[in-house]
């Protein structure tokens, strides 16, 4: 007997990841819900399934409590990935997580792991200012949503639009055209006109006051709300931190002079000044001759000690922190700083003097 024609169409299979709330298990009190799964669509997946009608089928839904995925052990993530794999999906979607921090993090981590370990395309949905975006947008495809579940309908529509294309293995166009958050990737494409002509068009648009979009977006830097000031420097513990590459002579820990992979700390207790000859500079970005003459020109230990003696600074930590910022990769430098911050907290430091070269 010939197969019914619709049997010949092998439907695309989607797995949907949710947190405990959207899976209908419970709220914050159930944030430790272990990973679990069910065949078919659940919660917001039901509306998503309708939007996908004819194109793809939600083969299974996997969920886990936000508290476990966000900072839980790796075996939680492993269990989730195994559950996802058991449904043999063509594409995985996660969320929408809207502005929820841990849910966003969970969606991003699941998508990253699915792509990396299973080689299956994945798509997350969350608000652009969800903290997970900054952490994961380079490796995870994310569609922007509103900050709250009020934006559910639009979020699901965006997921339904892109997920089948990912499942078919289609390459997506630029973020601005396709409507996902920029991943910071540059892709080659053939333009209709040479660069000189396009540049002139942009310039004319600008002069005419017409809208235009630059082809290369300048990096935008996140603003950090400044912490409150020190109330009394005479009672604070100050730490000296620098990316200038100043290390003891011989560079005993082999700090790299470019794209440093580490940060180091060296004792200054008992020292009134950084003596010439005791230090050298591991930094490929500037002439170290002036610093070699007097390392205090980089890390001003002599002046700091004088102000401690005069009672203007309470105390200085007995070691300084150093890495090398030459050609520093932004993410790597940020990681160095976060690790240094954790160390400073353990040592009850109040404030930092950061020397940047």
């Amino acid at each position, binding site marked *: 007997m010939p197969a019914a024609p619709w049997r010949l169409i092998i439907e695309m299979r989607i797995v949907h990841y949710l947190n405990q709330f959207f899976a209908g298990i419970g709220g914050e009190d159930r944030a430790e819900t272990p990973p679990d799964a069910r065949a078919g669509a659940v919660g917001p997946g039901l509306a998503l399934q309708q939007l996908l009608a004819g194109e793809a089928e939600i083969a299974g839904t996997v969920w886990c409590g936000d508290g476990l995925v966000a900072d839980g052990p790796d075996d939680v993530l492993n269990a989730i990935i195994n559950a996802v794999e058991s449904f043999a999906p063509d594409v995985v979607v996660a969320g929408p997580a809207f502005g929820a921090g841990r849910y966003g993090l969970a969606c991003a981590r699941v998508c990253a792991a699915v792509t990396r370990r299973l080689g299956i395309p994945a798509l997350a949905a969350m608000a652009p200012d969800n903290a997970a975006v900054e952490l994961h947008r380079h490796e995870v495809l994310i569609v922007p949503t509103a900050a709250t579940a009020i934006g559910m309908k639009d979020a699901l529509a965006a997921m339904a639009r892109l997920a089948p294309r990912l499942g078919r293995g289609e390459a997506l166009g630029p973020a601005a055209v396709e409507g996902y958050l920029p991943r910071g990737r540059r892709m080659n494409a053939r333009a209709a006109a040479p660069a000189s002509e396009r540049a002139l068009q942009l310039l004319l648009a600008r002069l005419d006051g017409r809208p235009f979009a630059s082809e290369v977006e300048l990096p935008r830097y996140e603003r950090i709300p400044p912490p409150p000031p020190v*109330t009394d420097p005479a009672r604070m513990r100050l730490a000296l931190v620098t990316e200038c590459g100043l290390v003891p002579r011989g560079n005993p820990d082999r700090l790299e002079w470019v794209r440093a992979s580490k940060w180091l700390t060296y004792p200054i207790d008992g020292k009134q000044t950084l003596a010439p000859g005791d230090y050298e500079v591991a930094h490929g970005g500037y002439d170290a001759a002036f610093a070699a003459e007097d390392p205090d020109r980089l890390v001003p230990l002599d002046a700091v000690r004088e102000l401690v003696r005069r009672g203007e*600074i309470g105390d200085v930590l007995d070691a300084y922190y150093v890495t090398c910022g030459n050609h520093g990769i932004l993410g790597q430098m940020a990681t160095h700083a976060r690790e240094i911050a954790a160390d400073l907290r353990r040592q009850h430091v109040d404030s930092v003097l950061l020397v940047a070269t």
Partner: protein
Amino acid sequence: MAKELERAGFPTATVTSLAAVAVKVGANRIVRGNRFSHPFGRPELPPAEERAWRVELVRTALRALRTPVEGPTVFEPPAP
């Protein structure tokens, strides 16, 4: 680095010759140092005067640390 240290809650005075860059990337408490190869140095001065100037530059950093700021702010050291 300044931003991550401040994000972690430590008021941070960033001493740099490239104050404009520091403003651009969003460091909050910026102190204008001398040159990028020696932000705390003035090799053209006699040693005692250089040292006195360095103490003033550290004092400027202390002023940055005890000043409430809303966003990137440059603190200028006194002229030598």
